[in-house]
């Protein structure tokens, strides 16, 4: 909380369009946080599948990341999620990894 002005919480994560509403104000299509959250979960699971991980809803503010062995971690945003993913997958998740890119391409 901001001790000077009493605002609770911080600005949202930069990947969430609610963190910068002015940047996305011109968006024509109806947009909701819930829809954005669903889309984020769907897409990130395409990536996480390569590592045997899956992200699911936990509450409005966080997600639960599950590994193959049942280990879980609660994460609040994508930046936190990648650190947890390394831990649960026991490997470095790297977007430049050619094997990952082949997985995303369905090859």
């Amino acid at each position, binding site marked *: *909380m*901001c*001790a*000077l*002005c*009493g*605002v609770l919480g*911080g*600005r949202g994560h*930069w*990947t*969430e*369009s609610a*963190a*910068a*509403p*002015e*940047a*996305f*104000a*011109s*968006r*024509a*299509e109806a*947009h909701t946080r819930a829809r*954005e959250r669903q*889309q*984020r979960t769907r*897409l*990130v699971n*395409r*990536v996480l599948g390569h590592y045997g991980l899956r992200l699911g809803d936990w509450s409005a503010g966080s997600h639960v990341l599950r590994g193959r062995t049942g280990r879980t971690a609660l994460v609040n*945003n*994508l*930046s936190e*999620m*990648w*650190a947890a993913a*390394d831990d649960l997958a026991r490997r*470095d*998740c*790297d*977007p*430049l990894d050619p094997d990952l*890119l082949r997985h*995303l*391409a369905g090859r």
Partner: protein
Amino acid sequence: MILGAYSEQTPINIITGFLGSGKTTLLKGLLAAPDLSDTAVLINEFGAVGLDHELVQNVTESILLLDNGCLCCAIRGDLQGALRDLLSQRQAGEVPFFRRVVIETTGLADPAPIAYTLLAEPVLQHHFRLGGIITTVDAVNGANQLQRFPESVKQVAVADRLIVTKTDLAAPGQLANLHASLRRLNKSAPVLKIGDGDIQPPTLLTDDMYDTAGRSREIEHWLRAAPGDDALMHDHADQIHSFALTYDTALDWTAFGIWMTMLLHRHGDNVLRIKGLLNVAGVPTPVLINGVQHIVHPPSHLPAWPSENRQSRIIFIVRDMDEERIKTSLAAFNQIANPNAMPGQAA
């Protein structure tokens, strides 16, 4: 106070540059401009003499001196405290009202932790935002310092403006060599020379990607860093280089966020700076992104596209990373959201 738009928060400009490169001389000149009189200054003194502070103290009354040497991660608590104090004093009317803050770092400082402090600190993030990073480079010694000191390379790589100082003392060949080195390390920052009339005090501190009036001019600087002139962009042993990716297909914001957070998690130490003008699917106006190492600031926007060109353009300044692999990776991530897009449409 309601959490306001990022663009409405007080900007913090960082003036950095290697030892003896003329940071304080530049600052003194800027603060003499009437338009910049409402500027608060934080000076990070280095060494026992504190000469920099003595030079500047008569220019403005709102100077706070940080005591602990270098403004790196180890002492950013001091910066946090100094900015909180400044904020309290402004709200209480104990200091003249200021519209911007300038932090002058030491000659050995890494500017990145300052950007991190502004975004991560729970009080500061409501009141301050990053403005521009201005780096001074000595025309005579700058090229040698870039070869010898990684601190100097980092300061150049993360800059929004590069100010070449002491140009009257340099031979023409020295200036040309230095200019080439600066372009290799950072192709998006304008290179301005003190003494050539290049320095326009008000816009130097006010133009940045979040300033409503100045952001269009700022984007013009980025767009001049056109792709296609990347030959010989690799520099010496540090292998820091810059390149611009263009992307024909509209980017899915969600996929882009997944990709960028993953890239910065794995390679953030080597991604020194990212600036981008993005064509985001479903958003008619361009979205601007701004990152310093692991830290990405909230996106901004332009009210309209600056030209008919609707390509996304992203400038990377990286260490030991391959441009083609980054380009291919972004294309692959974008395709999972846009299965009909052709892979590899990054030009």
